[in-house]
Structure formats: C-alpha cells, structure tokens
C-alpha cells in the first residue's frame, strides 16, 4: 500500500518537475509546480508528518503559488524564446546536473543505517510538533514573524510606483 502510493505520487512529482522544465509558457510551469507541491504533501503524509502536509498545501500550494500565478497573469509574460544563451545553457547545464545527481545517488545508495518507512508508523502528532516549536524553538519562531513583517514591508515598497514616476496624463 505504502509502495503503491509512494510510486504514484513520486511519479507525479517527477512528471510535474520535468513538465516545469519542458513547458514554454510560465503559467503551465506554475501549474506543474502546484502538482509537485501537492504530491509532496501526500509524501509528507506517508512519512507521518501530518501538520507539515497540511502546511505545505495551505502555505506553498495555496498561497505562494497563488502569488506566482497572479504575477504571471498580471505581467502577461508570454512564451519563452530559444536564444543562443539558452542553447549554451542546455548543452552545458544538463550534463553537469546529471553528474551531480549521479554523485548524490551513489552516496545515498551506499549509505548505511537508513531504515524503511511503513504506513501508520512514526506519525508525528500536531501536539508534539507544537510543544517543541513553542518551547525550545520559540525564539526562531518569533524571529520568523519579524522576517515576514520585513518581507511584507519590502514587497510593498518595491512593487509600488515611486513618487518620482509620472502617470500618463502628466
């Protein structure tokens, strides 16, 4: 059961990631990334991280990707072109990444002491997670809220029209 679910959703992850690279229009890349994120949420559920699965759907797939989708729609970026730079990057980039992936895969497959995952094992309840988050790791949590406040201010400051720009009629 676990194997079947893992294979299906890992397949969705990889298909979505490859589709992100193949597609020419950014909106379809964004939708493929949403598929990747929701499949990852299911994989987190299989590994027993229930709260993280829900947070992945709510935060990543439901908020961050909505932001991406809005920007793609508003800027109406259009399809990509094949330029000299992109051809060079494909020729050099693909083999380099294949080499890196082969190295990492060799290290992983020769690792000792990795166990297996089974359904209904190692489920972390929300209570365990929140106990550690709000007692031991309270300071990083509060710092994160300041970080998000700074990000909000920065985004508003960057995205608004500056005072020096003129609008059409002037």
């Amino acid at each position, binding site marked *: 059961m676990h194997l079947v679910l893992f294979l299906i959703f890992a397949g969705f992850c990889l298909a979505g990631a490859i589709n992100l690279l193949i597609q020419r229009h950014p909106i379809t890349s964004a939708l493929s990334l949403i598929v990747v994120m929701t499949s990852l949420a299911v994989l987190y559920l299989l590994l*027993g991280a229930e709260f993280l699965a829900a947070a992945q759907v709510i935060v990543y797939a439901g908020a961050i990707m909505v932001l991406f989708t809005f920007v793609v729609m508003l800027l109406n970026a259009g399809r990509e072109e094949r330029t000299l730079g992109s051809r060079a990057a494909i020729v050099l980039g693909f083999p380099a990444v294949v080499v890196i992936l082969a190295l990492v895969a060799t290290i992983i497959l020769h690792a000792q002491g990795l166990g297996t995952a089974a359904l209904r094992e190692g489920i972390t309840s929300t209570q365990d997670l929140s106990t550690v988050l709000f007692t031991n790791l309270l300071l990083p949590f509060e710092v994160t809220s300041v970080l998000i406040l700074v990000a909000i201010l920065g985004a508003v400051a960057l995205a608004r029209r500056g005072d020096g720009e003129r609008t059409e009629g002037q």
Partner: protein
Amino acid sequence: MNFTSVHMFSDVPLSWYLLLSAALFALGVVGFLIKRNLITVFMSIELMLNGVNLSFVTFAHQWHAVKGQIFVFFVMMVAAAEAAVGLAIIIAVFRARSTLAVDRIDLMKL
C-alpha cells in the same frame, strides 16, 4: 483499521525518498540554468527548496526527531517571505525593462 490481506513487502526504503529529493533538487538546478524567463527561474528555486524539504522530513522520520519537521516549517516561512520580495522585485524589473527574458536584462546599462 486492521486489514487482513495486506502484502508485507509494502515498506518503502527511505533511500528512495532521498533519491526523489535529490532528483527534485537536480531538476530545480537544471531549471535555474536553462530557463530564460525570470519567473520560471524563480519557480525552479522553489522546486529546489521543496526537494530539500523532502529530505528533511525523511530524516526526521528516520531519527524520530521532530526538529527536522520544524526546520521544514521554517524553510516554508523563509520561502514565503522570499517569494513575496522576489516577485515584487520581478514586478519592478518588468516595469523598468518591459521584458522578463533573462537574456535581455543581464546588463545594468539599458
């Protein structure tokens, strides 16, 4: 619920999860290098972050450590903040250059 007829070879070795995570990260790096649209490059960065999150959760399962999952939580928060600011920068770049093609905005001179 107890099922009386489930096959017992259905446990998944954790190395498979790590391989998937490495594959997602590698695909994110490929996307970062080869895509020519600024937003798609940014989306490849998010893909890399998600790949890393999966490996954190895998190790949290392996060592029964909740702190691995909390780190994923923090990575999500940082990714959210980064996405907000990064997309604001992309909007500002688009306003200045009227294009999102990476090859055309690689010089500071207009």
